[in-house]
Every structure is written in C-alpha cells, then in structure tokens.
C-alpha cells in the first residue's frame, strides 16, 4: 500500500506496527494514491 503524506507530500509505506503516521514529519493525515493498474470501464 502506498500513501502520500498530506503535509510533506512524501511517499509513505505503512507497516502494521507504526500506526497511521508519516515517519518523516509525524503528520497523521495520509492520502491513498491511485493504483497504477489499468482500469477497465464499461460505457453505459
């Protein structure tokens, strides 16, 4: 899972022990990045 810190804009990897917190600046708001997968949509 890759997230982005909303304050310092750096990429953050979350592990199961660290809790939701940016390891660089300590900010607790993280944004989930869009997956790089190709998404298929139907038109209807």
């Amino acid at each position, binding site marked *: 899972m890759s997230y982005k810190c909303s304050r310092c804009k750096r990429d953050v990897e979350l592990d199961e022990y660290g809790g939701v917190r940016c390891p660089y600046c300590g900010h607790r708001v993280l944004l989930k990045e*869009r997956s790089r997968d*190709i*998404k*298929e*949509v*139907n*038109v*209807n």
Partner: protein
Amino acid sequence: MSDQYDVTFIEQDERSAKFLVRGITPAFANGIRRAMIADVPTLSVDTVRVIENSSVMFDEQIALRLGLIPLTTPDDYRPEETVTLAIDVEGPATAYSGDLVSSDAKVQPAEEHVPIIDLKEGQRLELEADAELGYGKDHAKHQGGVAVGYRHLQRVELGDERGEFAEDDPEIIRGVIEDAGASETSRAAGDGGELVETASFDNDLGNRYPDRNVSVEDVPNAFVFDVETDGSMSVDDLVLSAVESLRTRADELEDAVQL
C-alpha cells in the same frame, strides 16, 4: 402499395436532408422514422481502459462522454468487430474528440471539436477505448439519426380575391407546401404544383398571398421527411439502411407467420 415510391428532394446535404415521399401510408412513414432512430447500427465507444486519469472527473464519467462522441461508421463493419481508439493529453489543455487516434483510418470522430475534459497543469488523461457496433434501441449513443421527423405535405389552393375590409389575420403554416397557384405552368400541368418551404415566406401564407383567400389541405399519403444524422454516416446511407432493416424485418415476419 406499389413497389416504387415517388421521392423528391427539397434539400440535400451530407448530414441533413429534406425530402418528399408520395404513396406511403402514415404507418409506413412512421416505420421509416423509427427505423432511422433505433434500427441503424453505428459504432460507439463501448469499453474504456484507463491508463492514467488525474483529471477532475471519474473514469466512468469520461467513459460516458467518450461513448457519446459520434464515430464515422463504414458500412462493412460486422457486429463483433471492434476498433480501438487511443488518447493521451497532458494539461494544461482541453482533450477534444479530435485527439483520439483510431486504429482504423475509416473510423474517426465525426466532429473534431467535441470537448472531453479540460485538463489543468499536471493533469493527464491517457486511455484506450474499444468501439463496437450497436443499435439506437439499446443505447442512445448508437443513434444514427438524431433529428428525424416528418409532416404531411400541405396543398395550398387559391380562392377568390379578398375584400378590401377583410380581416388581416396571419395564416401560419409550417413545413412544405404544394402550391397549386404558384405559376401558370404548374397549374397547366395539372399535377401537384410547385414545392415551397414555408420558411421562405416566414411561415405566413398572408405574406405570400396578401390579397387572396387560400385553402390549405393535407395531401393524403404524401410526407415530407426532415432527417439529420449525427455524422456517423451520410443521410443517404441512414435512410437506405433504415428502409433495408424495415424490409428485412418484414421478410422475417413473413417467414415466421404461416398463413
């Protein structure tokens, strides 16, 4: 009903036409109209693979907009064939239908300037779209004829001279008239008369014949069609394939029903 119909073109363009058909019943005229809207297949985007979409709209909304872009449809396409269109636009810019790159040169967006989405600095739209044949009865994106209608042909006969103090009410009519009193030659010919669009005299017969009494009547079994396509095919192709689909279904019915 005869096998031959009398068709006269009043206006003809690549994408729109106005024509008079004589000798068809109202039911048949409506059948042609409905076939033009619902039973002529056109290509439209059906599946979209989004590679990158950092625009402000959801993938699904963009897919819907892509579906509604009319694509030119060559007549040799089969229902299972697909055409792939690709687009890659980076902001700041507006992504237009003209930015779509098609895998088949004959299948192109009918209009180049349909906006898909406005992209700001740093936003990007990259995707592939598969277009398929479909029918207007299944989805509006597959409608080939978009402004299709018909009216009765109206016949205008001249009466006697209007009195000096006759009321000056406008005589509004719309469509196409068959003008029996237009010229000596058409009156002498005995049949019909000159075909005149009512727009040419501002839809008011009082403008055309200020001091004559006139009578207006529907001509039985004569219809003036007004047809416009979305650009996926020419009006000729649209009307012909609509009539063809009507014929095919009539044949199917004849085969299915044993009398």
